[in-house]
């Protein structure tokens, strides 16, 4: 039995099962079978989620390399392969994606009122393509998934979004598409540099890793990758699509965007920019760190000024993702570990916040902070879950956010102490805007300007909320299993970055790191 399981292409199954689900929904369900569609979508996303649990169960913790590798030749002459693999860095992201998909289906249960078939199909397609991005090792395959994920997302925003959905969808599409195209140029340039030097023309990133590019080429390719990845993260000043897309997207769309799509950008930096372009990463690390810190503080300040709850959460993402970037470009084990963990944490906390904002919006169609006060008294369960998520998002001890931010701050401090000082300001501001929002909406005397009845959560909503709360405390209280997963792979990454830079540049990176 186990042999049979091990011989199956488990990664391909995980990637394409949601796509199969999408096809089944489109072709098997009738036009008005909305309940059938919902259960089908839930069934498929749950199945994928359960199958993906096979990965942590059979994961080899001491192996820093890719596991469950699948390889097939796509084009011999061009050196393109269908090459999948998961290691300690991507494992958690894969799990986050499959978990998020289930949550999204549940969050859309009553939220989406028309064209449900298409909606659920798009949601499942988004899952397929994002899983593909996290598992692709071949850079060409990575790019194909990377671009493809845009299409279902654009449709989700554009068809089921709010009033300004068209504007937001096209802005999102154009920004990310342009950025990715520059990344494509970078990938092609890398391919030819490697091919000319070694005679092996390939997009296989594990092969490309073994060759040290000349420094100036690294610089330009880094810039090209930066344009692709930073738009997705999003880093200031490429972030302007995010508030629009987040605010206009339906609840589940915002959850996918925050929990999964933003991670694609930071994952790209981790997976490709750092190991393939170590010199450029080291040289540009101070710049990247400065940009990240700016994003942290700028995002926080802009968040303070927002009146719409969804916008608060959206802009807080800019700030939080800046944190992740700060951890990654500290270029040491602590920072990277914190960065990866914080990617997961941000997925959980921000995903949950969007979910909660969506729940109140579903009831009243009003997201303005000033319309509410004292909600805690009417909706106690909701209020408590919201509070836990807010605390986790601002990084209070015992919650998941604390562990991630702590590691990032240690990493930043090790890189250069002033980085940590500025970053702490960001943490403080984060506490201010989140608590302030919570205080205005939930505390004080109850008042609500509209007329809709405010009921506490129903069973389905409670279950989704509880799933998030459990994860928040699990990572907060016992992060060891999560950290252990990434240990081996991240240590290897730090070593390759250090080793390659010291070989080709005579130790200039250690200057950056020791300073």
């Amino acid at each position, binding site marked *: 039995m186990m042999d049979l399981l091990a011989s199956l292409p488990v990664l391909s199954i995980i990637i394409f099962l949601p796509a199969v689900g999408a096809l089944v929904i489109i072709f098997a369900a009738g036009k008005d079978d909305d309940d059938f569609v919902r259960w089908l979508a839930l069934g498929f996303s749950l199945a994928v989620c359960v199958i993906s649990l096979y990965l942590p169960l059979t994961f080899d913790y001491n192996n820093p390399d890719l596991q469950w590798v699948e390889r097939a030749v796509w084009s011999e*002459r061009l050196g393109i392969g269908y090459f999948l693999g998961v290691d300690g860095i991507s494992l958690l992201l894969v799990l986050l994606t499959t978990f998020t998909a289930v949550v999204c289906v549940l969050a859309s249960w009553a939220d989406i009122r028309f064209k449900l078939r298409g909606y659920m199909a798009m949601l499942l397609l988004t899952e397929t393509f994002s899983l593909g991005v996290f598992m692709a090792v071949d850079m060409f395959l990575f*790019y194909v998934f990377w*671009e*493809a994920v845009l*299409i279902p997302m654009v449709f989700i925003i554009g*068809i089921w979004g709010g009033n300004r959905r068209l504007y937001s969808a096209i802005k999102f599409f154009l920004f990310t598409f342009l950025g990715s195209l520059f990344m494509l*140029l970078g990938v092609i340039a890398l*391919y030819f540099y490697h091919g000319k030097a070694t005679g092996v023309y390939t997009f296989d990133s594990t092969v490309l890793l073994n060759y040290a590019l000349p420094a100036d080429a690294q610089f*330009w390719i880094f810039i090209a990758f930066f344009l692709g990845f930073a738009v997705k993260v999003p880093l200031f000043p490429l972030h302007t699509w995010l508030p629009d897309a987040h605010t206009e997207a339906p609840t589940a769309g915002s959850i996918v965007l925050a929990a999964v799509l933003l991670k694609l950008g930071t994952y790209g930096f981790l997976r490709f920019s750092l190991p393939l372009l170590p010199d450029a990463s080291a040289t540009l690390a101070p710049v990247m760190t400065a940009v990240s810190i700016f994003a942290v503080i700028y995002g926080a300040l802009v968040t303070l000024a927002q009146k719409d709850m969804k916008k608060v959460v959206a802009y807080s993402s800019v700030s939080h993702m800046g944190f992740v970037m700060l951890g990654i470009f500290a270029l040491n084990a602590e920072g990277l570990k914190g960065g990866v963990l914080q990617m997961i944490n941000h997925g959980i906390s921000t995903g949950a916040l969007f979910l909660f904002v969506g729940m109140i919006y579903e009831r009243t169609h009003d997201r303005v902070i000033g319309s509410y006060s004292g909600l805690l008294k009417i909706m106690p369960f909701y209020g408590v879950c919201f509070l836990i998520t807010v605390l986790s998002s601002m990084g209070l001890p015992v919650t998941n956010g604390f562990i991630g931010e702590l590691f990032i701050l240690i990493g930043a401090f090790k890189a250069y102490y002033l980085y940590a000082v500025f970053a702490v300001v960001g943490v403080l501001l984060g506490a201010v805007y989140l608590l302030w929002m919570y205080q205005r909406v939930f505390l004080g005397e109850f008042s609500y300007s509209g007329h809709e009845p405010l009921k506490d959560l129903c069973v389905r909503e409670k279950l989704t909320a509880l799933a998030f709360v459990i994860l928040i405390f699990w990572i907060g209280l016992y992060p060891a299993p999560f950290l252990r997963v990434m240990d081996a792979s991240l240590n290897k990454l730090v070593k390759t970055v250090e080793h390659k830079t010291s070989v080709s540049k005579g130790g200039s990176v250690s200057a950056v790191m020791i300073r």
Partner: protein
Amino acid sequence: MPIETLNVNLLSILPMALVAILALSMLVLDFFLKKGDKGAIGYLSIIGLLIVLPIASNAIEGAPAFGGMVIADAFSAFFNCIFILAAVFALYLSVDYLKRINSETGEYYYIVLFAVAGMMVMSSANDLIALYVGIELMALSFYVLTAFRVRDTKSSEGGLKYFVLGALSSGILLYGISFTYGFSGTTNISDIARLAGGAGANNTFMLLGVVLTAAGFAFKIAAFPFHVWAPDAYEGAPTPVTALISIGSKAASFAVFLRVFIVAFPAFQSHWWKLLWALSAATMLYGSVVAIPQKNIIRMLAYSSIAHAGVILIGIVALNGAGAAGVMYYLLVYAFMNMGAFAIVMYLGRVRGNGEYVSDYAGMSSRHPVIAFLMALFLLSLAGIPPTGGFMAKFFILSAAIKARYYWLAAIGVVSTAISLFFYARVVFYMYMKDAEGDSPAPAGRPALAYDVVIYITAAMTMLLGLYPAPFMEIAIKAVEPLIR
């Protein structure tokens, strides 16, 4: 010239000869058919072309024939297949289209066949004279076809503009050919390189010949600033002809562009790359920017085809095997995706009586879900989004540019691609995200089978070329290898 060196080899002219014979026999058949039966000529032409298709793809002779006038190599075979496929699709759609506009005539079909014969002469021409004859045969046929909707002033306007500017461009091309002949002493494409290379490469008049030839070709591929005829001709021509002009005429012109610049003028590359670089950059940016405000979808597709011509030019500028093969692959993909998009425009015209304007597409996803989905596929492929064929084509072209270290040109290509996403995505947005305004016209009946067949085949090919490019790319690379030295 003794008969041995003439190398009379019928195989090398077999495909074009067959198409010409087919056209002539249709001409004769036309006299014997009654007014209502002219559709038969269309179907017979399609069957004839489908019979020629395997012959054309296998008629490969390495050596030039007829005193070096023509050459039937893998390169010309590849293009001939594109022409025949495009013509088959266009003719199949035309039968129903002509019925709709009430001008069923026999001459339409055999003029299309003559145009195809002209294109085939172009792709296998190994001599500037033969090349010119091919261009004129194709162009004259298209002038007539563009003005074919005699009751519509737009059609006459488009035809006239196309004719006047086309005649001008032929003049310029001939002027270029005469300079080339005057200073190299030959019109044979493979001999020009030998005679005009080396010290002759700096001859000013020879260079003038190169520049004028480039200008002549730029007219034919509708590159900025030689594009002015294209939007009017596209809008005025019967839609199947528009599709054929944008695919066949463009592919044929690129075939001669490639052959002449790669085989005859490589010695001047240090000069002409700057010219073509600027031409390519300007064409890409102009086409994609000007397409944005277009309300008429055919005009939009016209400007989009200008932008595509700019992108394809990158492959010629790169002057390497990857670039030339990229051009061929791009034109193959373009044939399918563009034909598909035009077929859907015609389908809407048939079913709903509109479809000419972008706003006609509002709410199409709920009325015609499958057609809307396929239109989205074609448009996203035209925009170059994976995993469609359009992406693969762009990828090959951009790779060639980067391989040849034209980083800036690649960057401009990328920017223009992003700009063009805007107007393609706009139609998709109309179809999926807007509701139809007012009463939509009542359905005008069930459309002919031709639409479904063409739309599904082109959609399948667009996806296939995106997911499994290897065999097609292999053919293209093998075909250009003998040309590149």
